[in-house]
Structures are given as structure tokens and as C-alpha cells.
């Protein structure tokens, strides 16, 4: 898509294997079979926008694995959070989790994953694209969203436009506090709210589910992440298909769980252990194949408290 030069702000010199425009996702349309989409690591996405001076919902780039090179066509205020993909600004290391000025003509590059899988680049004002069903979230499988509205990932030669900053950015810290920056090299403990079929799993399987280390399989993408480990047996092998929420951990007859993420199918028919919290789903989306994760079942009280604190912090 070509944009008038006046609005274009960034030129894509090299697109990388999977760079997608993402906002918070597409809602109010799941009954049409349209998936959620949106930033797979909502936590890092929210911090990127916050640090760049944007409000909740602004579109960012979700950069998976790296391989991206961008040139600024005007001075921009940005923040990069999430995975450490060895980002550089004119070949100097780019500080993450803080506001940075990206000057006209400078090249911002993302190399390869050093820690984590997906980085988020927020630009003050937010990236501009025509929303489809009220969202620019790019879902290639559904041909919805993204720069051209047709679900295409970033391509070499694309020009990215930025919304004009209409109001003065809010006075905020320009750096995320140390404890907010996640260390993706640690083995994450993913918190799960048990679901209705949990009682149908055998006792041995439940013990294994919450006391084993699970390995992230290479069958992992924005739809879902397959975990390999001990076989989990459920007395129900298949169910009548029903709506599935973000983070649902379903167990097909092969006994290996799949945690469903943003681009999941809207309905499905496997029994579920429960649902990861949105923050745990975010954390899982940063895991590379071969990494280990643990599952921990918890009651809704503390999980809800944590989730609400997260939403409240960023919705102000």
C-alpha cells in the first residue's frame, strides 16, 4: 500500500519473518466466527504504548523473531518492550522498556531473539491503518486487519503512517520500573483457573499436569502453543464444540495440552483443564520452542485481583 508521503513516517527496509500490526484485538464479533487477534503478549504491548505516551488500544508492531529494519522518515518518539531481539538504533544497542527518540534517517533494526520471542514497538500517536470490525489487529488466516486491512504481514517497501498526536501526551515516567520488566529467560509459572472438565481428568494426570515441567513444542504460533510432557488422560475424549476463551488449555486424545492464544478458532470440542489468565497467556507467547513452563492451578480471587490491577493501571 502506498501512502501520501506527508503521512508516511516509517519505511520498511526489511520486513522480518513475522511482523504484524496489532492492537488489543477484535471484540464483539466472536459470534461471527471471527477470532480475537491482537497483541499475543498484551502485557508488553500495554507497556510499550504507555511508555510512548499512547493510550490503551493504540496500534503497535508485534515483531516476532526479529529480522526487521525500519527507517524513520521523520523524528518519532517510541518505546520497545517485550522480547530482547538485539534491537539497535543506527547500530547502537537500543534501550528497552523506556521512551526513546528515533530521529529522521536513523535505522531501527531487530536481529534475533536473545530472550523472549516477540518485541513490541509503539510509536507516539500510534500506527495508522483502517480498522476492520473496529480493530486493526492483523490476522493473516482470516485476511483481516493489518496495514492494508487484508491481513498481510509487513513487507519490504511498506510505508507506515502514524496518527498525528492530537493531545499532549500524558506526563508519565519514561522508563518502566525494574520489577515490571519481565525476564523471559526464567522458566515461567503459568497460572490457570480450573475449568468444568478438570474433574474428568484422572488423579494421576492432574498431579502430572501441575507438578511437571512442560516443554514448548515447535507447533506453537499465534493460534496456540502445544506443550509436551506426561500424557494427560481425560474420561471425556471429545465434546460438542463450544466457544473457547483466550488461554484455554485443551487436551486432545493424544494427552498433550494445547494452550489457545489470540488467533485461536472461536469454537472447539476438546476437554479443557481450564484457562490461563490473560497475563499468563501473554507470558507463554514469549516462549520459544524447547523452553520449559510450569502450570499452577489457582482460585479466581488472587488471579482476578492481579488481572484487574493490570487493566486498571493501563486504562487510566
Amino acid at each position, binding site marked *: 500500500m502506498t501512502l501520501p508521503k506527508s503521512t508516511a513516517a516509517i519505511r520498511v527496509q526489511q520486513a522480518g519473518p513475522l511482523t504484524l500490526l496489532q492492537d488489543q484485538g477484535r471484540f464483539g464479533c*466472536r459470534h*461471527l466466527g471471527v477470532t480475537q487477534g491482537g497483541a499475543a503478549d498484551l502485557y508488553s504491548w500495554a507497556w510499550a504504548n504507555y511508555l510512548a505516551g499512547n493510550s490503551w488500544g493504540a496500534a503497535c508492531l508485534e515483531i516476532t523473531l526479529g529480522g526487521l529494519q525500519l527507517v524513520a522518515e521523520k523524528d518519532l518518539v517510541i518505546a520497545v518492550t517485550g522480547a530482547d531481539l538485539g534491537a539497535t538504533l543506527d547500530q547502537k544497542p537500543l534501550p528497552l522498556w523506556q521512551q526513546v527518540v528515533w530521529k529522521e534517517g536513523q535505522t531501527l533494526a531487530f536481529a534475533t531473539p536473545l530472550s523472549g520471542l516477540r518485541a513490541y514497538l509503539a510509536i507516539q500517536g500510534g500506527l495508522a491503518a483502517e480498522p476492520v470490525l473496529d480493530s486493526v489487529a492483523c490476522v493473516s488466516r482470516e485476511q483481516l486487519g493489518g496495514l492494508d486491512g487484508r491481513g498481510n504481514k509487513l513487507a519490504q517497501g511498506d510505508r507506515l503512517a502514524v496518527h498525528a498526536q492530537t493531545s499532549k501526551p500524558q506526563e508519565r515516567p519514561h522508563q518502566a520500573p525494574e520489577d515490571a520488566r519481565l525476564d523471559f529467560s526464567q522458566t515461567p509459572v503459568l497460572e490457570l483457573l480450573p475449568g468444568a472438565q478438570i474433574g474428568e481428568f484422572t488423579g494421576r494426570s492432574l498431579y502430572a499436569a501441575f507438578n511437571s515441567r512442560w516443554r514448548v513444542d515447535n507447533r506453537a504460533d499465534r493460534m496456540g502453543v502445544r506443550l509436551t510432557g506426561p500424557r494427560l488422560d481425560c474420561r471425556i475424549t471429545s465434546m460438542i464444540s463450544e466457544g473457547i476463551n483466550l488461554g484455554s488449555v485443551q487436551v486432545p486424545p493424544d494427552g498433550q495440552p494445547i494452550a489457545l492464544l489470540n488467533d485461536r478458532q472461536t469454537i472447539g470440542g476438546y476437554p479443557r483443564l481450564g484457562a490461563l489468565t490473560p497475563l499468563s497467556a501473554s507470558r507463554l507467547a514469549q516462549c520459544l520452542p524447547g523452553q520449559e513452563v510450569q502450570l499452577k492451578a489457582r482460585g479466581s480471587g488472587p488471579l482476578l485481583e492481579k488481572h484487574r490491577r493490570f487493566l486498571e493501571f493501563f486504562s487510566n
Partner: protein
Amino acid sequence: MTETRLPMQPRLESAGLDAWILRLFDRIDETNLPWLTALTHDCEVALGDALVDLVPSYTTLLVVFDPLKLSPQAARQQLEVVISRLQPEDTLTPGRSHELPTYYHPSVGPDLERVAQHTGLSVDAVIACHSEKSYRVFALGFAPGFAFMGLADPQIECPRFDTPRQRVPVGSVALAARQTAAYPAATPGGWNLLGRTSARLFDRDREGFSLLQVGDEVRFLAVDREEFVRLGGDLTPVEAKL
């Protein structure tokens, strides 16, 4: 007015910090629809601006809400009230009716022969049987605008493929067991392809986006090649199964 009762005690099941599943039935039946349609509507009214998404399916409704506007406990209480007052939608006001012009032919329906062999019917009899019945939309999912419809006549019941096709063309009309559907976009798929419709099933420029909605009534109207092309149908043959 006589009260109609549900065949089982409805259940509320946790589906995450921001969602409940309302389970009304434990088996697929066309008579589930008036209840689920009413439930969907009543939940929309009850939750108001705290509602995020509603996903009806064959026996359940997934209700997703905004946890900043409603706690799971408060949502649960509201949904319990909805269920306690639930009455099935008046059957005199069902969903909309659609006729999907469909070209049944081996070039675009390469599995007509498979279904014929499996059922012992002739290809013509399979086509007649599939196109004579009207179907209900039970659920949307799998892909935008993909409607799961049923139930097909038991005479043409035929299982899906163990290994799906890599690419099923847009508009393909398909059968799996006693369910039928039409593909709104080219996707992988393991259903038996009987033909192709010229109808645009998902259109981002249309109000409501999806041609078919849960509760709608659908008939596949057999048309000849000429009419199919006139309606804008695509004759590109299905790629050989990998």
C-alpha cells in the same frame, strides 16, 4: 401461557477470569435453537455495556464480559437470573431464510462420488437428498462466516476425511457426518465437497458481515453451470488431494 421446560438443569461453568459458559443441553438437537437464541438475546440485555462477546454453539453459550465493569461473581448472579427466567424464543419468529445457489458437479464437488459409494446411493440421489432439505445454522466458527448446519438426512451421512485437504476453495459446499457447511474462504478442510455456491458468505462491507447467523434456515438451491457462472460462481477445479 404454558411454561416450557429445559430437558436438563442448566449449568454455569467457569471459562476464565472474564467468562462463563452456560450449558443448557448435553446433546445436539434442532429444538435447542429457540432456547439458545433467547438466551443469547437475554444475556445481551442483562449484561449491557459490560458484555464483550457472546459465542453460541450447539448446546452452550460462552459469555465474555469486561472484568473492570463486572466481577465474575456479579456476572454469575446476573446470568443465574437470566436462566431462571428463560423461555424459548417464539418459534413463529425464527431466523432469516436463505437459498444458496449451488452447482453440484464433480469438477467443484470432487467427493460426490465418495459419498455415493459410502451410502450406496447414486450421485444424483446424493445431490437430490442434500438439496431438498432445509438446514438450521447451529453455530458459527472455524473461520469467519463458517456456519455449521444440520442435520442432513441420515441417508447421506458420510464421515469426514482423516487427513484434511490443504486448500478447500471459497464457496465449497460440504458434508461431514450429518453436518453441512459452505466455506466462506479458502482454508484447509476435511469435509466431503459436494459442489460450490456463488453466494458471498462473509463480506466485510456488509451489515452483519456474515451472510448466515445462528438460527437461520438455509437451503442449497441446485443450479446448472450456466446459472452458476451468471451468478458469479467460480469454476476453478479443486486441487488434487495431497
